[in-house]
């Protein structure tokens, strides 16, 4: 150390400080594509469009489908509903790796909502539709109240 040239050590140290500063900035910049990746990935991972699709189908068809009734059974409606439910369940499972199901008007005190008129006002009877979706990452459950569609008004 004795023979070492001691001149210009301040300049060397400032050089080091600037280098360290640039290194830190480079780390910050290198995180930017990583943020982009995780955002895009999580957007793709979240099954927004699938859930909206199922939900939209039920809202557009649902108000005509229910009418499941113990007092005035309509076997056509029940057949149709079971058909749609099983189509949805099997195709979701086989193509989208997701469990999808729905039910209309749960039983309450031995009666369907429709018969007991639980949800009703002076204008409509309402149907309760429960939607379930689970693809292992995202779980979604929703209860919808749909007014009974009446073609005669």
């Amino acid at each position, binding site marked *: 150390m004795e023979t070492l040239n001691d001149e210009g050590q301040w300049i060397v*140290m400032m050089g080091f400080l600037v280098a360290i500063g640039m290194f830190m900035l480079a780390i910050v910049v290198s995180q930017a*594509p990583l943020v982009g*990746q995780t955002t*895009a990935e999580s957007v793709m991972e979240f099954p927004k469009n699938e859930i909206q699709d199922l939900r939209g189908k039920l809202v557009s068809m649902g108000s005509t489908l229910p009418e499941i009734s113990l007092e005035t059974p309509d076997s056509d409606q029940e057949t149709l509903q079971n058909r749609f439910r099983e189509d949805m369940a099997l*195709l979701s499972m086989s193509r989208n790796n997701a469990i999808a199901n729905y039910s209309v008007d749960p039983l309450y005190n031995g009666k369907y909502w429709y018969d007991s008129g639980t949800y009703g006002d002076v204008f409509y009877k309402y149907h309760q539709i429960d939607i379930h979706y689970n693809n292992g990452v995202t779980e979604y459950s929703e209860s919808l109240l749909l007014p009974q569609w009446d073609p005669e008004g």
Partner: protein
Amino acid sequence: MVMNDEGQLYTIEGITAGVIMLVTAFTIFNSGLVYTPGDAHISDMQIQQLGYDALQMMDTPADSSPLYESPLAKMIQGNHGDQFKIEFNDYLKKHTGTTEIVDSLEFNATVFNRDGDTPHSYQFSNSTMYETSQLTREPAISVTRYVWITGRPFASGYDTGNQLVLLEVLIWRR
């Protein structure tokens, strides 16, 4: 005031050692992170959303009363894959008019329906497959849409009557 200039080299040595230790720790803790280029996922996400939106537009009926067939449902039931090709291509190509996008998306559409407990499928439509697309292409993105149709789809041997079929479209950039 006279500054004390002694021991500056030792200071530099100390700082250097500190930086080396920091870099080592940073490298060790970051080595668990697998890095893939972010760009690929961003364009995948955009293609996926484009596909879902195109299918949703085609599956919107003109009349909003319940159980009214959409244009897409009519195409599937009539097996009009050629119509689907024209319309879907048109939606994929849409741009604002101020920019010109690279028109290089290709697709392949398959219809899945249920027969008992078994899913069946048949090829519904596809874009013009250019030769370059056979040689090399980017990974395909899958988009799906449930379509309600009033009868059985074109292919024979399936259940008749009202049903939901799943339209799956693979989209890729050649």
